[in-house]
């Protein structure tokens, strides 16, 4: 049914709004046969595997080590943006403390591996589950709030997690935790001149490949969710929470689920990050990073995976690429963001549904700011 729904949504009706090469590519894509899609997927993955190629380094990042940058910030930002996309893009909730879940994943890896000698692979699911659980713990009392209020609470949560890490000796305080062990190595599997499963300090590429694998899994997972009944429930909540509830969508349950799912992805990113850098400290998890990831999601096009990936890539890569501009790069970056929001407020590669929501005047952020935005309460306020 969902396939049908998608098809019908994307063929007729939309034509008026279609313009430009991006739209024609998209229309083609919507009708593309299975083999063509798979071919593109495979090409994209192969392309991602080729990215660390040394020949690209002088073009992509003349001032810093390209393969290191590919892991952090680029890869990590992409993964975090994909996670935040579940919360913002799918369910339409504004989460300003997303970095907290990343921190929880990273600290899970750090403490358990350093203090209890547990390895990377058992800790990966642990970090994911712990982050998801903390998502539920944060969400259960707060998800009855909407829009701006939820944003404020999540912002607070992000700061609380950082402050707790700063002030807990067991977590290393402000100095953090170092000597976090790398994932176990299996030497001798070579690909493109990289010893694929050798996780040492010198070569960042195996970590990058590990991250690519996680990202691919997360993308498949997100896509499946999006097309499922869960995804439709999230869409309904995003577009009109009250209407969703009276259609029989258990809105609270699904909001919690979206929060937990997003948190779990953040947790996975945290574990991988800690295992690579072998050092975590509270300073790694500032509020600014939550805001940056949010910018990546919105810039790329919330709710649309290709958009989110491109957005995160740009947000991570542009400041590195223009490192030569020194302090001016933040200024330039800010100017680019402002220009983007003027000329493409729905994001670089928006989801079509989002576009229609924006056309309707909902602000395109689902129900961020819903308490004043829903027609119901608006009329209620107006009538008093």
């Amino acid at each position, binding site marked *: 049914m969902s396939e049908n729904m998608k098809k019908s949504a994307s063929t007729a009706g939309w034509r008026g709004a279609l313009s430009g090469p991006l739209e024609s590519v998209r229309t083609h894509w919507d009708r593309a046969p299975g083999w063509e899609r798979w071919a593109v997927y495979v090409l994209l993955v192969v392309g991602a595997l080729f990215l660390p190629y040394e020949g690209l380094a002088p073009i992509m990042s003349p001032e810093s080590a390209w393969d290191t940058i590919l892991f952090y910030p680029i890869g990590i930002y992409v993964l975090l943006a994909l996670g935040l996309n579940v919360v913002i893009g799918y369910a339409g909730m504004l989460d300003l403390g997303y970095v907290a879940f990343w921190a929880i994943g990273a600290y899970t890896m750090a403490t358990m591996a350093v203090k209890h000698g547990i390895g990377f692979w058992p800790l990966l699911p642990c970090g994911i589950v712990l982050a998801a659980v903390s998502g539920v713990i944060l969400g259960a009392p707060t998800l009855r709030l909407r829009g701006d209020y939820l944003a404020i609470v999540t912002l607070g949560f992000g700061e609380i997690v950082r402050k707790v890490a700063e002030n807990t000796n067991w977590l290393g305080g402000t100095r953090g935790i170092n000597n976090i062990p790398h994932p176990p190595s299996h030497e001798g599997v070579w690909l493109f001149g990289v010893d694929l499963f050798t996780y040492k300090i010198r070569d960042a590429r195996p970590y990058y490949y590990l991250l690519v694998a996680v990202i691919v899994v997360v993308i498949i997972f997100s896509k499946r969710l999006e097309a499922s009944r869960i995804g439709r429930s999230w*869409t309904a909540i995003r577009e*009109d929470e*009250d*209407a969703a509830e*009276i259609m029989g969508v258990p809105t609270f349950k699904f909001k919690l689920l979206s929060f937990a799912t997003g948190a779990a992805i953040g947790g996975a990113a945290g574990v991988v990050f800690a295992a690579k850098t072998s050092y975590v400290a509270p300073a790694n998890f500032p509020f600014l990073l939550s805001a940056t990831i949010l910018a990546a999601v919105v810039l790329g096009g919330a709710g649309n995976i290709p958009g989110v990936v491109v957005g995160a890539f740009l947000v991570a890569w542009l400041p590195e690429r223009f490192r030569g501009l020194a302090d001016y790069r933040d200024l330039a970056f800010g100017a680019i963001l402002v220009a983007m929001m003027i000329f493409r407020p729905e994001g670089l590669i928006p989801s079509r549904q989002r576009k*229609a*929501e924006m056309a*309707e005047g909902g602000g395109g952020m689902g129900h961020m700011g819903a308490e004043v935005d829903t027609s119901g309460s608006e009329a*209620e306020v107006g*009538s008093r």
Partner: protein
Amino acid sequence: MLLELKDVHVHYGKIEALKGVSLQVDEGEIVSLIGGNGAGKTTTLKTISGLRSCSSGSVFFDGADIGSMPGHKRVLAGIGQAPEGRGIFPGMSVHENLLMGAYARKDDHSKELAEAYELFPRLAERRSQAAGTMSGGEQQMLAIGRALLSKPKVLLLDEPSMGLAPMLVQQIFSIIEEINRRGTTVLLVEQNAQQALRLADRAYVLETGRIVRSAPASELLDDPQVRAAYLGGDVGDAAPAGAAAAEAEAGTVALGKGEAAETKPEAGGAGPEAGKADGE
């Protein structure tokens, strides 16, 4: 009795929006709830559909107390609502919106789907259009059609005439009548009192959170006080529906507070047999 509210109080923070509302809806009726801005009409509907919880009092539906039942479960119990301001899903297509109406159902919904398209041929034409890009009237049709997909025992309609052209109001109201004829009980909230009273069997007049009047609709239509407060004074029934609608709006705005407030609450109300206004 299908639906009953007993002494329901609802608060928004410290503001009391409903101050002890009691009303009943019998099976097969069209009951109308009229009143001015801020009277608490929408709040009453939200309380019935579970979007607002009452601070005291109880809501009975189909013999069971549903006061503590969450909103999403009330759909399955048989309460369908077309929310105020249309409340459709703007990014979804018309068809997807209708399917959302059947979200909670596990059985086959193809009959209701066909029925919705039959009642509103306009929706069939716009099947794959994004709902948010449709006109107000079409969105209202979609909201009603979507509510029908849940196969409700009672259909709650929140100001279906709001912001619509008089012709369209007529059309929507005759469809509501048709829906009722096919066996769905309707609770209709309206500011357009004239139209609502002509359609309804019985009506309640709500004012600042209280029911101040309850009577057969035809009686209210002829009642001088109600006429003065909600129906634009003495302008006759002979006026065309569109003009009357506009006047009803105007009457509400210019509502003389004293007169309407003096009307005494009348317990009970009349049965479904009370007969319709013969205005149509």
